[in-house]
């Protein structure tokens, strides 16, 4: 999109600023007059370009921990390094202008137009007008809002979802190496929330920012995080791991409870169909000899022939009668519906399988051609991280 205009990119952003690693070293926050620290010896490292989600029940210090990174809350003890440099090396103002900041209520300035809102930090840094205008244009396109229609409006003239997008654009204005996001989608209705999450993840593939993302919602954490830090009361780190690890090997009872009893189901959101070693069905075409079909059945994982058309697109599962004679007839026991796509997450694929008659799902590639078969058993094995064994034949026989 905007990258297609090289002149614009070069004037608008300090071409592709590197994401920074973030390191918290034994960070403590003790508020004056309180006995228990809000954050207690928290150490974690976020590799450059990854999303680290801080999650936990209310009062676990997750927001405090995030706010210490840009010194909205001062550190009592320990240190925080951004790109290897201590956050205390600079004044809080200089530091904050280098770090993107998005909060739940967005906090757009109601008295400024959208363009001026986005231009807040560039103006503080003294960018010239042309550079600011070009950057605003670029950012509005990036968050999929029409610059012409949006630029001169006031925040009150936008919907909640649009305001949230502007909040993200504003935080990205100077292409900061690190972003802090405090429940950024918390105030959005569930449908738009999911859309914004997906949109943000797609954006992140391009931007590769280091991001600290705070939420109380474990499902959001699993979806958004490359790594998840679960905090418990008193700001102590319960577990810091990748989502799959967290779901498969919760460190203690607290994590287990917090993640919930449906850990296995939640893992379905982490895997896609392409991650699964699929079964092969005997694919036959109309008019093929039954001898050839029987030969294919011998070798196949699934013991039901799948009728495909000329291009290899699935039509349906053949009945026994279909290959009783000399040649295969189009006599189906059921249609091959619904089909599953390689990019579907297992949770969605499982829902499809449960709805189909044979509980098999034909997996199709981008051209709609059958490439394999997904079964409920395979989904189950995928969840447990067991290499799928080819025992489908027996399963079908019973």
């Amino acid at each position, binding site marked *: 999109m905007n990258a297609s205009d090289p002149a614009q990119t070069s004037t608008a952003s300090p071409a592709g600023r590197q994401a920074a690693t973030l390191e918290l070293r034994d960070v403590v926050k003790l508020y004056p007059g309180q006995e228990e620290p809000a954050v207690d010896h928290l150490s974690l490292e976020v590799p450059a370009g990854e999303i680290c989600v801080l999650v936990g029940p209310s009062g676990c210090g997750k927001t405090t921990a995030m706010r210490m990174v*840009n010194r*909205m809350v001062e550190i009592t003890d320990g240190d925080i390094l951004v790109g290897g440099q201590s956050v205390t090396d600079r004044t*809080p*103002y*200089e*530091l*904050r*202008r280098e770090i993107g*900041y998005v*909060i*739940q*209520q*967005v*906090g*757009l*300035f*109601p*008295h*400024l137009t959208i363009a001026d809102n986005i231009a*807040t*930090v560039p103006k*503080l840094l003294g960018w010239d007008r042309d550079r600011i205008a070009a950057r605003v244009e670029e950012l509005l396109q990036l968050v999929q809002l029409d610059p012409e229609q949006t630029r001169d*409006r*006031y925040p*009150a*003239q*936008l*919907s909640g979802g649009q305001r949230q997008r502007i*909040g993200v654009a*504003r*935080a990205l204005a100077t292409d900061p190496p690190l972003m*802090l996001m405090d429940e950024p989608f918390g105030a959005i209705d569930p449908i738009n929330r999911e859309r914004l999450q997906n949109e943000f993840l797609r954006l992140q593939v391009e931007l590769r920012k280091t991001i600290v993302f705070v939420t109380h919602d474990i499902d959001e954490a699993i979806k958004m995080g490359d790594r998840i830090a679960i905090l418990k009361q008193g700001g102590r780190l319960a577990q810091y791991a990748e989502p799959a690890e967290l779901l498969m090997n919760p460190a203690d009872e607290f994590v287990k409870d917090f993640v919930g009893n449906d850990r296995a189901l939640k893992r379905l959101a982490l895997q896609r169909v392409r991650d699964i070693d699929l079964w092969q069905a005997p694919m036959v075409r109309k008019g093929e000899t039954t001898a050839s079909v029987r030969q294919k059945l011998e070798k196949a994982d699934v013991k039901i022939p799948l009728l495909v058309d000329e291009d290899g697109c699935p039509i349906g599962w053949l009945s026994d009668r279909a290959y009783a004679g000399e040649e295969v007839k189009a006599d189906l026991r059921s249609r091959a519906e619904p089909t599953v796509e390689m990019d579907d997450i297992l949770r969605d694929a499982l829902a499809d399988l449960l709805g189909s008659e044979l509980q098999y799902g034909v997996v199709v590639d981008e051209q709609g051609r059958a490439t394999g078969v997904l079964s409920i058993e395979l989904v189950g094995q995928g969840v447990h991280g067991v290499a799928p064994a080819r025992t489908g034949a027996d399963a079908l026989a019973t």
Partner: protein
Amino acid sequence: MAENGFCPEWIVQNWDRYVDPFFQHVLLTVVSVVIGFAIAAVMAVVAHRRRRLNGPLVGLTEVLYTIPSPAAFLLLLPFTGFGTVSALIALTAYSLNAMLRSMVTGLAGVPEDIKDSARGMGLTERQLLWKVELPLALPEIFAGLRIASVTTVGLATLAFLAGAGGLGESIESQISFKSNVVVAGGLCVLLAVALDSLIRTLQKASTPWTRARLT
């Protein structure tokens, strides 16, 4: 022509005698409101930065406001003498309360999340005040300014007690003569309405965002 009657002919012939008092009145009002605005603004910023001073400062202007107005003009005479200065001091003191209150309310009404995002992006406290808090407090500040202006136009009719002239003197000099009272009083009303609409126009021009609605 009846002695006490209303006589348009007389008004036309004697128009000149109202010109000076009118401009005196304008001067008294505008100067005291402008000075009052500046003092209230400083007080408001101090009260905003140091919350403990909020109560005492607002309280002080309240006390000034409760002094009976004729008394105020006379009380100052031993100190600042008979004339415009005494009148201006009294009028300024009266104007403080409405403006300080509205400024304090306006600044306190700026939502926390907006201030948080401003600080989080690296605005200094001074930038926060000038770029965010004051602009957002403008509707309240203007409301206070309007009340103070209109009130001061009224109070300035007593400025003649301190020897500062104004339309009050014209009214007082021939209080039983209807034509005189109507003209002098009418000019007061006109001045109040004019000032009010002038400030309203300024407010509209400087706060376009308050009329922005989802379309």
